[in-house]
Every structure is written in structure tokens, then in C-alpha cells.
């Protein structure tokens, strides 16, 4: 038992710095995918037909590929084509592609749930397209966008564990490294699971709170 506690005490600093990397990767992915996803999501609804088809093709392809394959394809596949990315940025790029496809869907769902009359009313009082989005559509769509989006952040955190396979020392990789030294796999995997759980459970609980908070919105 004392040995076990020693192993855990020894592991904590490594796991904490790994956790920092996990959070950093997740944060960058979440921010980039939010921007790209909302822009492309709006394009998917209001864009010309050719653009809509292109975005559809992009999201449906990304959603059909396992994240792990996406990560390997970006990391190993881009350098021969002349684009050298470090393992960190390759992982971030791959996860961002995956998350962007998700955010596009959330955006499409949220915006298309706003009754058509809102857009027409905004048009009739003379707002230009950007204003219509900014003052009429987005404030209403945000309430529908937020709960699934917050819940989807857990997918970024969970997906970020795959960056360990490229050698990025995130929480997952830190756990494996410590196990390599202490040969105590079970307590460390459980400890890691608890850490992931703490982050993701907070996010999914927040999502449920938001959902309840905005439940008053009915058609």
C-alpha cells in the first residue's frame, strides 16, 4: 500500500504537466474549430449551391474517417507532399478538422432551427446580410448551439488522448511514461481515467445545465 502511494505521489507532477498539454491541445482545437465551424456552417446554409456541396462533401468525408486515421494521415501524409508539421501541430490540425465537421453540424442545426420569418422580417426592415446574422439570427441560435457545443468539447478532450500516439506528451502519454518506469499500470490508468472524467463530466454537466436553462425556447 505504501508502495502504491509512493508510485502515485511520484506520478503526480508528470501527470499534471501531461494534463497541461492535454488542455492546451484541446483549447487550441476548440477555438480554431469554433471559428472555422461557424463560418463554414453559415456557408452551408446561406452559401451558393456549389459552396454548400463542397462543405457537405468536406464534413461528410471527415465524419466518415476515424480520428486516429485522420491524425496519422495528416502527420505522415503531409511531409511527402511538401508540408512539414511538427507532431504537435499535425495532431492539432487533424483534431481541428474533426471538430470543425462537428461544429458545422451544430451551427447548421442551430441556425436552421430559427423560423424563416425571422430572416424575412430582418430583411424587410432593411438589414444587410451581416446585420441580419449578427442582430437577429445569432442571438437566437446561440441558445440552441451552446448545449451541444459544450458537450462536444468533451470529444476534443477525449480525442486529444490520441496525440500520445504521435509522441506528444499529453496526459495519456505521461501516464504511459510513468508506467514504463514504475510498472504500476492499474493505479495509474485509473488515476488518469479519474482526471479525464473530472474534466469531461464537468463539461457534460454544464451542457445539461445550459440545456435546462434554455429549455423555455419552443417553436
Amino acid at each position, binding site marked *: 500500500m505504501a508502495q502504491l502511494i509512493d508510485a502515485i505521489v511520484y506520478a503526480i507532477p508528470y501527470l499534471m504537466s501531461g494534463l497541461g498539454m492535454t488542455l492546451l491541445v484541446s483549447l487550441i482545437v476548440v477555438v480554431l474549430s469554433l471559428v472555422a465551424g461557424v463560418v463554414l456552417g453559415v456557408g452551408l446554409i446561406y452559401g451558393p449551391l456549389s459552396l454548400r456541396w463542397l462543405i457537405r462533401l468536406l464534413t461528410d468525408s471527415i465524419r466518415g474517417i476515424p480520428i486516429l486515421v485522420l491524425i*496519422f494521415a495528416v502527420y505522415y501524409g503531409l511531409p511527402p507532399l511538401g508540408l512539414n508539421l511538427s507532431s504537435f501541430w499535425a495532431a492539432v490540425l487533424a483534431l481541428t478538422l474533426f471538430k470543425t465537421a462537428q461544429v458545422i453540424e451544430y451551427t447548421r442545426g442551430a441556425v436552421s432551427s430559427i423560423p424563416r420569418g425571422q430572416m424575412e422580417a430582418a430583411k424587410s426592415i432593411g438589414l444587410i446580410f451581416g446585420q441580419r446574422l449578427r442582430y437577429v439570427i445569432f442571438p437566437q441560435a446561440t441558445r440552441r448551439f451552446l448545449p451541444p457545443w459544450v458537450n462536444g468539447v468533451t470529444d476534443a478532450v*477525449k480525442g486529444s*488522448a490520441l496525440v*500520445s500516439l504521435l509522441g506528444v506528451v499529453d496526459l495519456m502519454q505521461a501516464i504511459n511514461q510513468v508506467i514504463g518506469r514504475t510498472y504500476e499500470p492499474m493505479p495509474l490508468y*485509473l488515476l488518469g481515467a479519474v482526471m479525464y472524467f473530472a474534466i469531461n*463530466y464537468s463539461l*457534460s454537466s454544464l451542457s445539461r445545465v445550459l440545456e435546462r436553462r434554455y429549455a423555455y425556447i419552443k417553436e
Partner: protein
Amino acid sequence: MGYQLSFNQIWRNFDKLTNGVILSLELAVIAILIGALIGLALAVIYVSSGRVVRAIISSYVEFIRNVPLLLLVYLAFYGLPTVVNLAYDASTSFIATLSLYAGAYLVEVFRSGLEAVPKGLLDAGKAMGLTPWQRLLYVRLPTMTRITLPALSNTFISLFKDTSIASVIAVPELTWGAQWINNRTFRIVEVYAVTTVMYLVTGYAILFGLRLLERRFRVER
């Protein structure tokens, strides 16, 4: 200096990929079958039990859903055998993990499916003199199955993609096949291009088939 595409090496080792797809599909099918049993049993227990049992089922669901699958795979394959006297090969370990993983997602699917069965149907069953067990078997479950069919197909597709994670414990599925070819031939771009297309084509072919099935059994509402 350009990179010359050459697919020869890929076609020469193509059996690694075709066998890989087949194994991926097998893993996903077994996992969804076992997962559906777990999910269904727990969902039925959930809707008909008190607070304590519900809390236990919820904690299983929440634990699995909030921890990366990769960690669960490592935990089951490298972690578990050190504390319990258990020896299993990588495939068995992965199937067990993926089934428990699928089960956690399917509990939610079946639970909301059971709750979506119209109350009138159950009352009608009661009026006909069916026992509670018969009402579950002949009224609630068949109706629930039709309601949950779309969610089941989505879960299956998602499990098919998740089988790629089995490559980290050297289960020879599609992603592992890709790595195998890559390690020997270094035709990196080609092998991932082919693998990606194989995942996409297989995934969408299955999805198309399942959607036809869903249309056949759709519940008119």
C-alpha cells in the same frame, strides 16, 4: 524533388487491408451485439428501479462516456491482467472493451426509446390482460426497437470507426494493416489514401443499407 506516387506496393499487400476491413467489421458487429444486450438489460432495469440502482447504472454510463476510448483499451489490456488473474489476447480484450463502451452509449439510446413508447400502447396492452412481462416483451420492446433503429445504426458506424483504436494493441484490423504496409514499404501517402477511402466507402455503404432498413421499419407518427 517531388514525391512520386506509386501504388504497386499497396496492391501487392492489399490482403492486409481487405482482411483488416473484415476484422474491423467483425469487431464492430460483435461489440454492438454484446453492447446491445448490456444496454437493453440495463435500460430495462433503469426504467423500473429505484434511485440507488439508477445511480449505479448512471455512474457506469458516465464513466465510460467521459474517458477516452484509448485509455479504456490500455486499461483493459495492460492494466487489468496485473490485478486480476486473467489472460486474454488483444482481440478478446478489445472486444470486451468496445462492448462495454457500446453498452454505455446504448443504455441511453434504449432508455429514451423505452420512454418514447406511447403510454396508450401500454394501457391497451394492460386492457387486453397482458401481464407486465408480456407487455414488455410484445408491446414495449418491439416498438422501442423501431424507434431506436436510427440511433442504433449511428452507433454501429461510430463503433466501426472506433475499431481503428484496436491497432494500438496490435489487433490486425484496417488501421493496423495500413501501419504494417507503411512500416515495410514507406508508401505513406498512398497507404493512408487507400485506407481512408476504404473506411469511407465501407462506412457509407453500411450506412446506406441501414437507412434503407430504417425506412422499411419507420414508425409513423
